[in-house]
């Protein structure tokens, strides 16, 4: 059945990318930057969803991977003056390394224990960024502006603080992560992950090393989170401990569940809807969190499977 819909699947996802490419020309400046942020954060949520929606593991500690990417890229940029591409690689490497360590420790647990353990390790990470504040500058953070040398693309030299450059960097990040996610969930690996989500014992009895697969899922998820973290640091020009705090572990959870866990497009939809709900509500009242809360409750009551999840159920069961 999947084969018949392959072009439709590709079509839908490409349509989103192209729409985002086109949007940058028409939207006003504020939304331009806002969309850039949304895309990077959606990439983070995509990474998160690989673990939650497809492998069935709910983590409450992903902020440590996001922040590892941020610091992994930001610290070398700030102190050593490396270029942006090297910084991204360092950020990804940092979160990969961290995830291997954390995964080895935490993947022995599952369910709510996994939730709590990941949360606690993330808390340790956050407190460590505060403890080593002479290097990380803790909660107050540090500014990257002025530390970002221009990138040479052939004959072109582009500075990363240019809004167009920023948007397209965010778009490229999002597109890459979306592509990885789409490929992974449709691949044999992805199917094993879904099998683990549905029934881990059975999958194990079929001969799969479920621990290895779970670790793989966690490391890919963390690498994507770290990548998005390093890009976020560069486009916002700020690195601070607040990104390692529990709130940044809760955000991808909400975005993913709202958009639809277990769908590739869900994380993006969830991130965009939540961000725009907050922005729109704060336009009208200073008590906008009430509006946001009400909308969140209403949306999840109407779409318990998430927005894209509900859409898929009704109209497009072939959507990955």
């Amino acid at each position, binding site marked *: 059945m999947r084969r018949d819909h392959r072009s439709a699947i590709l079509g839908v996802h490409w349509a989103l990318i192209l729409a985002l490419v086109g949007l940058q020309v028409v*939207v*006003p*400046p*504020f*939304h331009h*930057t*806002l969309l850039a*942020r949304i895309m990077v954060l959606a990439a983070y949520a995509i990474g998160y969803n690989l673990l939650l929606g497809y492998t069935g593991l709910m983590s409450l500690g992903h902020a440590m991977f996001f922040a590892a990417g941020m610091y992994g890229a930001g610290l070398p940029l700030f102190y050593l003056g490396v270029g942006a591409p090297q910084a991204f690689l360092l950020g990804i490497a940092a979160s990969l390394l961290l995830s291997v360590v954390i995964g080895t420790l935490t993947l022995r647990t599952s369910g709510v224990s996994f939730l709590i353990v990941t949360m606690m390790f993330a808390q340790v990470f956050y*407190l460590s960024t*505060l403890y080593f*504040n002479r290097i990380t*500058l*803790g*909660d*107050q*953070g*540090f*500014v*990257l*502006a002025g530390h970002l040398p221009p990138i040479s693309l052939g004959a072109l030299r582009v500075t990363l*603080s240019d809004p167009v450059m920023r948007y397209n960097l965010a778009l490229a990040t999002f597109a890459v992560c979306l592509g990885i996610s789409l490929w992974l969930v449709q691949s044999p690996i992805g199917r094993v992950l879904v099998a683990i989500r549905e029934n881990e014992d059975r999958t194990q009895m079929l001969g799969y090393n479920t621990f290895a697969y779970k670790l793989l899922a966690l490391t890919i998820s963390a690498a994507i989170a770290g990548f998005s973290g390093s890009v976020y640091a560069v486009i*916002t*020009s*700020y690195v*601070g*401990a*607040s*990104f390692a705090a529990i709130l940044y572990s809760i955000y991808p959870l909400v975005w993913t569940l709202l958009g639809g866990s277990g769908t590739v497009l869900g994380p993006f939809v969830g991130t965009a*809807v939540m961000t*725009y*709900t907050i*922005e*729109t509500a*704060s*336009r*009208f*009242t*200073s008590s*906008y*969190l009430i509006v946001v809360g009400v*909308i969140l409750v209403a*949306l999840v009551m*109407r*779409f*318990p*499977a998430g*927005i894209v999840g*509900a*859409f898929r*159920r*009704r109209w497009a069961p072939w959507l990955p």
Partner: protein
Amino acid sequence: MSAKRISRREALKAAGIVVGAGIAGLSPRPPVPSGLRQLVYAAPSGGTPLRIGFQVHRTGIGAVYGRWWERTAAAAATYINEKGGMAGRQVRLVGEDDGTDPARGAIAVEKLASEDKVDLIFGTLFSNVVIGSAPRAGELKIPYLVVSEGYHVASGKMNRYCFQPGITDVRAQLTAISSWIVNNLGRKITLIYPDYAFGYDHRDFWAKGATRLGATVQALIPIPPTETSFTKYFSRIPADTEVLYHVMVGPGVPTFVKELGEYFGSKRPQLFGFIDSLEGVDLASPGLDFLEGTHFWEAFPRYAGGYNTSFERTYRERIGVNASGASVRDPKDVSTYSHMFGVWETLFVIKQTIEQSGYKRPGPKDYRAFIETLERFQTFSEGIGHPQGPKKFVGKIHQAFGQQFISRVDGKKLKVVHKTKIEDSLYSPEADYTKQPL
């Protein structure tokens, strides 16, 4: 999972919500200002109004300050408008909540600059939010005046669009009062401070300056920002410490003081606190009797009479603060008196700069005039625009310097016992913004 099937009508309704929100988000602001986000003062008259962006902590851990920030800003703008506005133009404040979060702060700056197209932005308080937001203001090339107390603006680490002309910074405060502390209270000091930015400013000052003053820092107790109970940390206070120096922020503050009292009882070291530990908290609160006889730094004496000038009295009255430093409408609503004056004074600095620079509208030429004019100021005279006292302004580091007060708790009130001169607080500038390109 068995959710009921979603009918087409419901799906369309939901799609409508989402799209509607998106459209509402994307459409340009209506020409007539409306909604609770804008604080409107007096009918416009004589030229188009000046739109001043106001980044404020309406939610999050800074919300206590945020509340008073808005009252002070509203009172200042009303007063200014009554007296004819700035350069004859009425002032409109455009408020934006940053949730006391650095990431949201940057978004607030973007919104104010790109969407609301304000003339300039002011108001941010918490150091981490300033540091997260200022780069954005620098990139968008819009003047950004903070009311923060942190040393970051003066340190040169922000950008040329960033100023702090309405409130003094921690380094200056400590430069002014540290010798009083050592000479009057004791030489062996234990520092208790919050384990982040603002706290580090305190720690670093004493690290560099203690020996010169003849004092020793015996112990450093940095407390995590979200801590709610402090007793367990008190055992780290050395038994022979002479001065317990405390500056705490956040909701744990009343607990901190209360637990300190329970722990020590009557045989306690001298205490020196920053009023930050008690902003928004009533001195007569249960459990604070322990503070009787101890000293606090204040930027602006909370209790009426501490700095008795006609300007201070008018200022206090216009904002609606009673003689004990609480709201006239609700005596339980205690103000952040030692900090919020910065908002008032900053608006008057803006007024002075706009009038002197000939600023007309947002744009590189007018902004250059604004910034260069502001950088050239050397003093701000005491007056209704500067009720806290006269100021010296150092253009190179974009920072104002002023007098500081030390008060003692006496009968559950604060009584001023010492006032420093502006010169006591000066330090040599470590940077020069005026050399940076715009």
